[in-house]
């Protein structure tokens, strides 16, 4: 805060009282304005995290109960994971998370970068192409989910249409198949987000100093070498931002699964967020739901905290 007035009266004996009061007010104003949102965040984010953690150690069923009963909820989650041969819902959820997270982030990054590099070739009509690729991001996951649900449904969409045109051997029923349904979630998710990633990369590409490129070209670098050795390494910060945005979108994905698959055959498309919601609110097993939420939080922390740490360390240097 760079206000002239200082709040320490001992150091400013010469200042008249009115100015000091005004100064104090100016000094305190940001804090006063910030205080409500700070308190709201503190209670409704961190307060509830603590509350959820507490609930996960109780035997809460339909409504919260406050009698501590130890880590039984966690034991149930992990016992299911390690001992069940037909995968339990929790095991399905976390393996789905791994598949979805890896493919969604990976394909979005690769496809986004590829599209951005193509668009960066000073092609005609870029102004039209860019919003076309970016537009899916403007849709909510519910809309994306429902649209793709119809498109992928063997009785309504792609398969039916191609059969109609005479290609009757065509077969694509992933959305009804317990082993493949999670990949349809990847398809819809990638469709939605890769344009956004493209826009981020495009901005990054435009920010690269043209002189470096020219120098490299004069040195005889081919276009491929140029991108591989110079441009992509320079885009590192964009990669990181895109990764963080995509990773958190992957972890919080809930609506896409519900709208696209309604949970999939026998719950085979669940992600941990679906598991948490189902158990907490539909199955009246609030303790198990809370335990799964806490595990999700710990997983996210395991990714985000090292990242924040390295970022802060770099800034401090």
């Amino acid at each position, binding site marked *: 805060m760079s206000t002239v007035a200082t709040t320490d009266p001992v150091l400013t004996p010469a200042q008249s009282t009115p100015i000091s009061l005004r100064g104090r007010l100016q000094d305190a104003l940001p804090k006063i304005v910030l205080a409500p949102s700070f308190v709201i965040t503190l209670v409704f984010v961190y307060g509830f995290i603590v509350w959820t953690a507490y609930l996960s150690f109780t035997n809460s069923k*339909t*409504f919260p109960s406050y009698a501590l009963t130890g880590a039984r909820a966690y034991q149930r989650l992990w016992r299911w994971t390690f001992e069940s041969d037909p995968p339990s819902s929790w095991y399905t959820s976390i393996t789905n998370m791994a598949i979805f997270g890896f493919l969604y982030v990976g394909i979005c990054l690769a496809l986004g970068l590829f599209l951005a590099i193509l668009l960066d070739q000073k092609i005609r009509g870029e102004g039209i192409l860019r919003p076309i690729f970016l537009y899916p991001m403007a849709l909510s996951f519910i809309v994306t989910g429902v649209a793709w649900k119809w498109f992928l449904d063997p009785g309504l969409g792609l398969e039916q249409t191609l059969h109609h045109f005479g290609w009757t051997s065509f077969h694509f029923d992933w959305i*009804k198949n*317990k082993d493949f349904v999670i990949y349809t979630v990847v398809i819809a998710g990638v469709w939605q987000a890769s344009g956004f990633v493209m826009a981020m990369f495009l901005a990054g590409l435009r920010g690269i100093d043209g002189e470096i490129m020219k120098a490299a070209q004069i040195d005889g670098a081919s276009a491929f070498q140029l991108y591989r050795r110079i441009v992509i390494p320079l885009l590192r910060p964009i990669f990181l931002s895109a990764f963080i945005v995509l990773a958190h979108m992957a972890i919080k994905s809930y609506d896409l699964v519900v709208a696209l698959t309604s949970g999939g055959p026998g719950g*085979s498309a669940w992600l941990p967020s679906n598991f948490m919601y189902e158990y907490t609110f539909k*199955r009246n097993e609030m303790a198990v739901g809370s335990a799964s939420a806490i595990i999700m939080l710990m997983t996210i922390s395991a990714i985000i905290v090292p990242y924040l740490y390295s970022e802060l360390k770099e800034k401090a240097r």
Partner: protein
Amino acid sequence: MRKFLSSAAIAVVMMAGLGGAQAADVKEVQMLHWWTSGGEAAALNVLKQDLSKEGFAWKDVPVAGGGGDAAMTALKAMVAAGTYPTASQMLGYTVLDYAQAGVMGDLTETAKKEGWDKSVPAALQKFSVYDGKWVAAPVNVHSVNWLWINKAVMDKIGGTQPKSFDELIALLDKAKAAGVIPLALGGQNWQEATMFDSIVLSTGGPEFYKKAFNDLDEESLKSDTMKKSFDNLATIIKYVDPNFSGRDWNLATAMVIKGDALVQVMGDWAKGEFVAAKKKPDTDFLCYRFPGTEGSVVYNSDMFGMFNVPDDRKAAQVALATATLSKSFQSAFNVVKGSVPARTDVPDTDFDACGKKGIADLKAANEGGTLFGSLAQGYGAPPAIANAYKDVVSKFVHGQIKTSDEAVKQLVQAIDDAR
């Protein structure tokens, strides 16, 4: 503070736009329900009109979704936030759960005046009376062990009423040979489990059903009869079209109505859809008990749970309860809905053939002790257990659980965990 925090938490989680439903008015009934399909909405209109004659406005808090999951979530948020609706459609153990939490009102006075104890079957009173107090008004009795058959298709393939499970399979084979989808099923876990309720009753008989699915007797749950039931489920699933996963129940009913499919195994709310489509029993469609379950009724009942509303809303609540259990409404409503009255003293004159049969079956089952709560519908055991059961059945249907041995093992463990 804790209480405040918990209410706030759930209120925040539930972003559903229920805010509008809170304006308290003496002359208004706020009703949370999930009757949004054609037949259901028409049935509810009867009650709306009855109440408007008495000067009470009807305020819907509808939440779509056949099984009522979404509605129950919304209700939980409202209750936790302390803004009770006048009444809510509720199923079985949910009523008791809420009564235990102390949020239900007390209708004993009205019940005494209207003589509910005598006219409502004891099996229903188990859920509508808590601690000696009437907390809910039963609206109807559904039974789930029905077959709904398209008569035109039946005639085309030359089928007759199946009397045993094997005859049912033979009938389905005939339909398959004729190029019709034999069995219309919606691939949601409650639909699959509802069908399995009938299969278990057919395979093991009434005693077995009661022991396994009402008393949760572990020996019965892991018995060979239960394994056989899962094997029968595996057999019947082969007659479902490959595109069934995720389908709503009324879409499956529509397949039978249109003649795309021969039969649906579903509760009698399916009849409401036939009626709404202007179809007549015995001429357009047939209703049989699931083969091997004649004489028994696996029931669920829609109840209007009555909440502990402030005094200025009590009058509206009492009017709603009285109207709900009046003979005229019970008859008119259930004629449209497809179910049978929750009072045993309602004449069956206005009912069609299937309704008359349903009323007679209910009366016989009530007297003969073969009236069982449906586990799939939340009348056999508390929700956590019912959901664990639905999970296992659904995983078996969709192939995550591959053998009946494994299914039985999973069922026992899942129920044990949820206890």
